[in-house]
């Protein structure tokens, strides 16, 4: 199974976290850990947020690189970094 950590930079607006977390779960990944920080510099802008998710694929067909692109499709998501390995949980 493909496990990993996603670090997602996104614009702070109503529903943004729900949209991101919901997409991850609907696309076949189990959420193992979650952490959020605010007001990132650089790409995220003055009101940027960063969400760090530890995820585990529910079956062998699920790929983190595909999930990465699906997250980038969301309006307000500016960057997704993926580390495809089992990580110590962020939660």
């Amino acid at each position: 199974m493909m496990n990993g950590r996603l670090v997602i930079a996104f614009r702070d607006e109503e529903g943004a976290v729900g949209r991101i977390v919901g997409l991850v779960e609907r696309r076949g990944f189990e959420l193992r850990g979650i952490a959020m920080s605010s007001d990132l510099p650089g790409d995220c802008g003055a009101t940027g947020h960063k969400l760090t998710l530890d995820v585990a694929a529910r079956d062998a067909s699920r790929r983190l690189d595909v999930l990465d692109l699906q997250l980038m499709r969301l309006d307000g998501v500016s960057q997704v970094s993926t580390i495809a390995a089992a990580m110590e949980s962020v939660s």
Partner: protein
Amino acid sequence: MARAAAAPDAQGNPAPVSGARLVVEALEREGVRYVFGYPGGAIMPVYDALPGSKLKHILVRHEQAAALAADAWGRVTGEPGVCLATSGPGATNLVTGIANAYLDSVPMVAITGQVATHLIGTDAFQEVDIFGITLPIVKHSYVIRRTEDIPRIFAEAFELARSGRPGPVLIDLPKDVTVKTVTPEPFELSRREPVAPEASAIAHANTLIAEARAPILYFGGGVAIARAEAALHAFATRSGMPSVGTLKGLGAIPTDAPNFLGMLGMHGTRAANVAIDDCDLLICVGARFDDRATGKLDTFAPRAQVIHLDGDPAEIGKLRRAEVGIAGDLSDILDQLTAVPAEAGEWFAECQRNKLRWAMNYDAPGNGVFAPAMLKQLSEAAGDGAIITCDVGQHQMWVAQHCRFIRPQAHLTSAGLGTMGYGLPAGIGAILAEPDATVITVSGDGSIMMNIQELATIRRYRLPLKILLLDNSQLGMVRQWQELFFEENFSEIDLSDNPDFAEVARSFGIEAFTIDHRSEVNGAVKRLLATDGPILCHVRIDPRANVWPLVPPNSSNVQMMEQS
């Protein structure tokens, strides 16, 4: 920099206007002509602002139909269709239509009323969290908290709905936000620029095309989204390559083009499925390897290298690895694919032989109406400009197999969601989008009952829709599957207590007639097409008729079942 329009005061400052007025002005600025909707409590301020505007409101009889009609408008015009409903049940009734647009990547802006801001979260009358309910089925969504934000958010919503891979955008409007008066604020709109294709990827693709001995073009709904039909057709013509289309792709290359082998997949042609199985290069354009098209995925095009072109980068490599994946403007990419396969002449000839060998057969025993033959005849008589909308079930597949399409916007079908009840509302949306076109809705006796109330809308606005209702008194596709894959254990498919559909149509004020014999088909087709106003032709067909060919579930596409 944009600014919402409002009459200035004596000092030249914009006058305060209500949120509802800002909504109407925002829709007018986007060039919206029709709003499909149904009023109710929380959305009443917006309805109060509609009279005197440039917007024409189409009062449907169920909110689901508003969303589905807006979907059809979006498919035909490429511009977002707009639907409007109140909070609570009005909003939830839109959900199926929003999901339909999401699954088929149709531009739409859905506007819902909401209880006043201070009541949100209190279980107020007609309060539901439509923002939360629709999160998985929208491209984006908003709850507008400040009246001043209305012009900017509407502009963003329309831009999002139509740009990139289109989709539905929801705007939830609390009642107090639409009542409050404010002075409009200027706003700026950012746009995402399309990414130019990489030259190295184009070169690699051209190399693969030049070296291919058995190439095939596999195209889908993404071609219509990108309005890339001309570039696709030009590519197919200069390369000489045979092609197959998905359900949503039909018409992107005319279905009677010599090198078009037909629809692929579960109810595709044998020539198309066999060609996919034998090809050594698969050029996928605006398609997504959907399970209804591929059958068992690991047996799909087993010997082929893949070139995958799509407007959406997230589709490339999602289900099938591509040797070359190129995301971007499809017309731009296709225009740069100039290589021609040098040694594929025998392959092209073989595909042609197979197309002739396995052509559809229109000879059927008996004197009853043979639906595929009637659809073929109606489609040909209606001509190139006609638009056909359909519902979901056996008749939907017969339309795909037997009707002629020269543009994808002429075939409106609920492909991704498979929404029974799509046909009539889609007919309404299509006929308003192209009032000069002959618009035909093909429905079944199961599907039409899901939105039959829209006959009232058709009558109210005198929409000259031609409705062909194929009635087998069954849920035909379910019956077919129970016959073939559930050992004839027929469960809950009997609809023999249907009403007299011609009488029902007449009770709505719509001309209608019934046929049940093959000799009546010619006259029925002529009458349908010659009638100026709306008309329904109710056709009784054999309840045992099946859709052939058929790929059984979890099978390779070449394991097709044929009529015995």
